[in-house]
């Protein structure tokens, strides 16, 4: 049995595919010449007949995956998040979203923590794009253990999914196990002064910020919003009504991601002060992941400051 806590999210994905592929022969995996990075290489080695190397042709890959799904296959499509979103968006729209085919786009190297490769490789628009598509569900797991649970869940749930994974190692949140359900936020910490809602890599940062704020006597509720679509409205509204202030944090543009979605829910259902942390309408540069996060206001100290600001506005 694989110990997922030791893995990156992409490694967890690769290993879980092998585990699921053993009994579920309908699983097919497609990659566009990056299987050694997305970690679908494990599946390719284990089940070569169900692995399809598409070369550097993402548009072709997505449409092929849909054709396979139309014949009863569960198609997993992997490449880097920038290419999985921007390069083949029309193919995803026409072949997957509109006809509601059973295709799972699992993209690695999401967000700015891809780091040194620079803006061409930093996916900061992918969540907005995928959340805009009818029929799609969109998930960003917080760690490797949740990733394994997510991959199992999307395999068992018919329909289109976009799952965004990271390049670098993500701190373990779910050491004690993960009860992931599509569309359900996970309450990691309870508190009554403010709520921090985070997704992906920023969940562990949110927990660190909450811990630090507790030292000041500020008690935060922390929600891991791994499913961005369908959004868990109840969890957001419950958090807002209990804590009266909300902060969101994500490794994505402020427009169209977690912050926008939470703002929409709050403004229509339960308005409370909201502070959103994310990338503010610009492309980032090469650099170390932690430095890029800090430069973009996504360090734990930035979350702490946002919490104080939100509470002040109550």
């Amino acid at each position, binding site marked *: 049995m694989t110990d997922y806590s030791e893995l990156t999210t992409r490694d967890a994905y690769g290993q879980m595919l092998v585990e699921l592929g053993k009994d579920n022969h309908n699983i097919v995996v497609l990659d566009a010449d990056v299987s050694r990075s997305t970690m679908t290489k494990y599946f390719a080695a284990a089940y070569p007949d*169900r692995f399809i190397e598409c070369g550097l*042709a993402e548009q*072709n890959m997505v*449409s092929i995956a849909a054709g396979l799904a*139309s*014949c009863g296959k569960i198609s997993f499509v992997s490449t880097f998040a920038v290419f999985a979103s921007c390069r083949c968006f029309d193919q995803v*729209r*026409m072949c997957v979203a509109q006809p509601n085919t059973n295709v799972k786009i699992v993209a690695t190297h999401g967000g700015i923590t891809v780091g040194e490769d620079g803006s061409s490789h930093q996916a900061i628009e992918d969540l907005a794009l995928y959340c805009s598509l009818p029929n799609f569900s969109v998930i960003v797991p917080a760690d490797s253990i949740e990733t394994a649970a997510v991959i199992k869940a999307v395999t068992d749930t018919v329909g289109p999914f976009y799952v965004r994974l990271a390049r670098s190692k993500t701190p373990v949140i779910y050491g004690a196990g993960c009860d992931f359900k599509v569309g359900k936020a996970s309450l990691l910490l309870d508190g009554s002064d403010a709520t921090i809602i985070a997704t992906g890599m920023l969940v562990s940062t949110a927990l660190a910020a909450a811990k630090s704020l507790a030292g000041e006597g500020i008690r935060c509720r922390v929600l891991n919003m791994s499913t961005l679509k369908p959004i868990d409205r109840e969890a957001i509204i419950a958090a807002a009504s209990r804590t009266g202030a909300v902060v969101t944090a994500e490794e994505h543009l402020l427009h169209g991601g977690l912050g926008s979605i939470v703002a929409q829910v709050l403004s229509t259902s339960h308005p409370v002060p909201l502070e959103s942390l994310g990338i503010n309408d610009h492309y980032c540069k090469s650099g170390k992941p932690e430095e890029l996060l800090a430069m973009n206001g996504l360090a734990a100290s930035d979350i702490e400051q946002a919490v104080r600001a939100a509470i002040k506005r109550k």
Partner: protein
Amino acid sequence: MADNIQELEATARKLRRHVITMISDAGSGHPGGSLSAADIVTALYFKIMRHDPKNPHWPDRDRFVLSKGHAAPVLYAALAECGYFPMEWLSTLRKTGTCLQGHTDSLLTPGVDVSAGSLGQGLSFAIGIALAARMDNKDYRTYVLLGDGECDEGQIWEAAMFAPNNKLDNLTVFVDYNGLQLDGFTKNIMSLEPFKDKWRSFNWEVLEINGHDMRQILSSVEKAKKLRGKPVVIIAHTVKGKGVSFMENNVDYHGKAPNKAETEIALRELA
């Protein structure tokens, strides 16, 4: 055989009449590309393909991927004539609440496997179907109809590289080479030539036929079925607007419905 050919030709004329009536009724649509493809579609649905209109999801059926989704009317006409849905549906084309969308929608129309309309994607989708057949040890075949203008799209050539690399000999592609696209003659907008050489250099088996000659259509598919180890592309030379004098080779009828008087003339010519 001769009787059969004549029957098929009569069916193709019937499909063309449906196309004219449907588009005229709808007040919009793309007659030219439906008329150029009518003989190929007829051959596929009334002679070549293994399919069962009573069981549109039959797993062993041959598949047809209409990649040039704007030729939906001729496909709908064929499906109705086969009995996939009532003939009365044809008069609902493009109207609010219809199951016959302006471009194909796999969720709405019995017998339609692929949503199309954004060009260049059908060949890739068909490759997925052909790969599934191989994985499942099934002997169904996959047929694709591409437009010539559609071959401007880069994805066609991604797919063109993929299929021979994967030795997909259960895949047969028709190109409806009618020489016209929305803005004008293909040779002026974006010449495809040397077209045959392009496919051949991508390692396809290339056949060239008159896409309005029923015998040539049937014999080219017979050849394609026998060939092992590579996919086949059949470059079908056709006439856009075929069968209606004022529509033939007339770019205006790429995407324009005939008015009442034109419809009467067209139906008379196709009688």
